[in-house]
Structures are given as structure tokens and as C-alpha cells.
């Protein structure tokens, strides 16, 4: 279980952060100023520090500097929390080495996006004892509206096997037979609502569940998270939006090995990591898994890695950040990297300070040779 240290002089903010961390099921320790935070980081060796910027006694910038000076704490990932986000501040804290920053006030989605870069995506519904394996390529959509079912089916059937149910009772019967990896459930249905339905499904298997709710009804979001929903999609939804949430939920329910198998391979004896094209959330989930795999490669004596970005349609800021993190971690472990990318992407990557000097090749063969 991960440990997160939250450092903020406001008890209210510490409580809010604790609430937002609930989906991660981590142990939380608290400090009320920078000095206390540095001391607790040395004692508890947390997996992540969430650090406020403006605090009495020692502010967040000073505390970050202290953490980075000490061998015992310099490797601990830090995410800054700030009510301000001027360019000067962002540059200053970036130079001190932070994994991200969260601007207050923040929504759960924003918070999870940053925190998941370090802890990985939160698990979906809790796995019951004795639960049997689920089919990660199947999704069950539950909604009393035939129109919504048709829209959801159209959005997902290209990539997954889609089952549909028009009531909670029907959903449970279908779930028991097919054990789909993801269940998308309308929260408001007659007879058996989305909360009663997920409760029954959690008794039968360990699938990730996505809630469907009417746009603007924010009151249901918190309740849905507490019930175990991994994500919430508001109706009316875009096909791409539903697909992204379902893809993410499917990967959240899968084991790290299941997730890795599509993105880690070997080419001529050299490990290859491929960055996913379709989903930034999937990338966020993958990064900590890539990190563990890197450490395991280093322990096995591997000192070379190809990072393949050839399949990317576009280079998003998430891809750049992920690539930089991967290259930095590999460098720290003494692993040499080469990037396999088409010329158009290489031109863009050479314009970024952190990636401009990396060795590039347009084919994996070329990348492998550059590592010899």
C-alpha cells in the first residue's frame, strides 16, 4: 500500500486532499508546515508528497529544496498544490524537480490526473474474495433508455464485445454469465438504481464500473465514487469520451502484466517500450508500470532500451511529459535509450530541451544499432 504525505497549513485542505485520495486506498500522513513535512518525509519515506506552496515556518519552495538536498528524500516524487500558478512560480518549482502541480481549487478529475502520474490510476471497484477472472475485452452497458444503449454500443463495438441490459436485474443476470471487464451503469433507473446494481456486481466479480449520469448533477459524483465507480460519464456523451473512460477502466481492472503486454516487447534482444496513442489516461496508468519494469530490467542487467513513439498520431503534452519521465528514469538506472520515431515527430522532439539530444532512428533496427 502506498503512503502519501500531505503538507498544508490548512486543516480543511488536508481533509479535502484526504477525501480526494480515497480511491487510491493509500495510507495518509499529514504535516502542517514545510519543516514538519521535511521531518515526516525523512521518517515515513512516502511514495508521494503533496506540498502546499504558501505556508508558515517553512514554505513549500524551501521544503522542496530541503527534500532535494537530502539523499534519503531526494527521490521522493513531489506534487505542489498552489492557489497561484504564474509562469515564474511554475518555472521555479520545475527547476527544483516536481512531478506536477495542482492549482486550487481543484476537481477530483484534475487531482487524479496529477496524482495518478505517480501512484498509477486508482483501482475500480474493490475485488471481492474468491472473485473469478473477468473478460477484459467485454463491456456491459446498463441503461433503461434504448437510445442511450444504442449510442454507447456504437461508440464501443469497434474495440470491445458489447453486451447491453435495460435494468439492474437484467444486468446482474448477464454479468454472472459473461463477467465483462467493464460495466457501464446508469445511476438513475427504475426499480434498481446504479448504486444497488454496482453493489450486487461487486459481490460477483472484480470488474471496473463506469457511471452514467445526467450532466450537471454534481451531487451524484461523490456518492458514485464512494460506491466504487472508477469513472463518471455525463449524458449526453461524445463517443470518444465514453471510449476513453471505458478503455481506462478496462486497463484499471487488468493486472500490470496484462497492461504491459501490449506496450512492452523485445526486438533483437533489446527491450522496447511503446507509448500508447489513443488515451492520455492510459499513458498515466502505464508510466508507473513502465517505471517498475525499468527497475526490473536494470536488476536483470539490461542497459539498453528502445522507446517507440512511431505509432503516435500527434505529440501531446502528456506524451512529452511521459517520454521525458521515462528517459530520466532510465538514465538514473544506467539504461541507455534510443527513440524510434518518424521524421515529423523527431523534428518536434528536437525542439524540446529534455529530448533534443536523445538518439533517434526511424526504425527499430536503426535504434538498436545506435545503442551498440
Amino acid at each position, binding site marked *: 500500500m502506498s503512503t502519501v504525505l500531505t503538507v498544508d497549513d490548512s486543516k480543511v485542505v488536508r481533509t479535502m486532499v484526504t*477525501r480526494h485520495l480515497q480511491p487510491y486506498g493509500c495510507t495518509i500522513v499529514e504535516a502542517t508546515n514545510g519543516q514538519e513535512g521535511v521531518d515526516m518525509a525523512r521518517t515515513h519515506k512516502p511514495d508521494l508528497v503533496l506540498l502546499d506552496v504558501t505556508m508558515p515556518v517553512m514554505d513549500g519552495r524551501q521544503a522542496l529544496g530541503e527534500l532535494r538536498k537530502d539523499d534519503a528524500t531526494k527521490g521522493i516524487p513531489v506534487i505542489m498544490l498552489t492557489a*497561484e500558478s504564474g509562469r515564474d512560480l511554475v518555472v521555479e518549482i520545475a527547476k527544483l524537480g516536481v512531478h506536477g502541480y495542482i492549482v486550487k481549487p481543484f476537481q477530483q478529475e484534475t487531482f487524479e490526473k496529477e496524482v495518478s502520474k505517480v501512484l498509477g490510476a486508482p483501482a475500480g471497484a474493490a475485488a471481492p474474495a474468491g472473485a473469478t477472472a473477468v473478460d477484459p475485452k467485454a463491456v456491459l452497458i446498463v441503461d433503461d433508455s434504448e437510445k442511450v444503449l444504442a449510442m454507447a454500443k456504437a461508440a464501443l463495438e469497434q474495440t470491445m464485445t458489447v453486451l447491453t441490459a435495460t435494468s439492474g436485474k437484467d444486468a446482474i443476470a448477464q454479468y454472472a454469465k459473461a463477467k465483462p471487464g467493464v460495466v457501464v451503469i446508469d445511476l438513475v433507473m427504475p426499480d434498481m438504481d446504479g448504486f444497488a446494481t454496482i453493489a450486487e456486481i461487486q459481490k460477483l466479480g472484480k470488474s471496473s464500473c463506469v457511471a452514467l449520469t445526467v450532466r450537471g448533477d454534481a451531487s451524484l459524483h461523490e456518492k458514485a465514487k464512494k460506491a466504487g465507480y472508477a469513472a463518471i460519464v455525463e449524458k449526453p456523451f461524445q463517443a470518444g469520451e465514453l471510449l476513453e473512460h471505458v478503455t481506462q477502466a478496462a486497463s484499471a481492472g487488468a493486472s500490470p502484466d496484462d497492461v504491459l503486454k501490449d506496450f512492452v516487447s523485445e526486438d533483437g534482444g533489446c527491450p522496447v517500450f511503446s507509448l500508447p496513442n489513443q488515451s492520455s489516461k492510459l499513458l498515466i496508468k502505464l508510466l508507473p508500470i513502465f517505471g517498475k519494469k525499468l527497475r526490473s530490467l536494470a536488476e536483470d542487467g539490461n542497459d539498453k532500451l528502445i522507446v517507440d513513439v512511431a505509432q503516435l498520431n500527434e505529440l501531446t503534452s502528456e506524451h512529452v511529459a511521459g517520454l521525458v519521465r521515462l528517459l530520466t528514469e532510465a538514465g538514473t538506472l544506467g539504461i541507455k535509450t534510443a527513440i524510434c520515431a518518424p521524421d515529423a515527430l523527431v523534428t518536434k522532439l528536437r525542439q524540446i530541451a529534455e529530448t533534443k539530444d536523445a538518439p533517434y532512428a526511424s526504425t527499430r533496427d536503426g535504434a538498436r544499432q545506435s545503442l551498440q
Partner: protein
Amino acid sequence: MTISHDVVERAARVVLETNASVKIVGAKQSHDTDGAFSELIGTLSFVGKLGGTLVVYCKWQQAVELAAGMLGEVGTEPDAETVRDAMGEMVNQIGGTIKRDIGADGNEIMLSPPVVVSGSPLSHCVRSSQKPVTVDLDLGRGTFGVCLWPA
């Protein structure tokens, strides 16, 4: 550089709605200070390219409900220290949001730590040659005032 009513209202709305999940049913913009006395006041100062004092104020019970909302414990009554803490965080975040909204970088405008005062009755006044930018948000069961006094 000036700050408009709309910037102040937008900042207050996003902070209240995001943190405390409150529903804002209306807003009144003016250049007056709130005529009614409040029971809790949070302030912070802007220093630098744009100077001034930001003040937020409301009745105690309203602040209690907002603090409970921030804690995710609607219907409960947090202790007085927690209510003041919530008000301080509220004015801090509204100040930060205004700063971001007007596109100011870190060193152009700096925000002081917030100060919160409670008691009854309270009013606020800042010596300034300019009129204050005041927005009163109607939360249904009470109002939440935000006032920016330019230096």
C-alpha cells in the same frame, strides 16, 4: 491593470462551487460595500503591479455551511477554528484565481497570507481613493460577499 466585477465574480464562483459544491442562485455587482454587517471576514493584500485588499465576508452560519461543504460533511457543524480556516482558504484561492485570470505572473503581483476575523457585528473599510469592486453572491440561504479595494 484593473480588475473588473466579472473577474471577481468568476473567481468567487469557481472557488465556492468547486470547493463547497454550493449552488449560486444570483449575483449583484456594485461599487458599494455591503450595507449589512457580517460576522466573519477574510482578507488578503495584493502587492506589486496591482495593489489592493481583497475582502470576503458572510454571516457565521453561512460560513459554517461552506466549511462543512468543503470538508464533504454537509449538515454537520465544524468547530470555530475549522470555519475560520476554511474562510482563509477561500479568500486565498479567490485571490489566486483572480491573479491567474488577469494573467499575472508570480513576481508581478504577490499575495499576502490571509487574515480571518470573526465576531459580531463586523464591517470593513479600506482607505482608498478608488471605489471598491463588490460582488454579493446569493447562495439561496444567505449571501457571500467579495470586495476588492484597489490601492
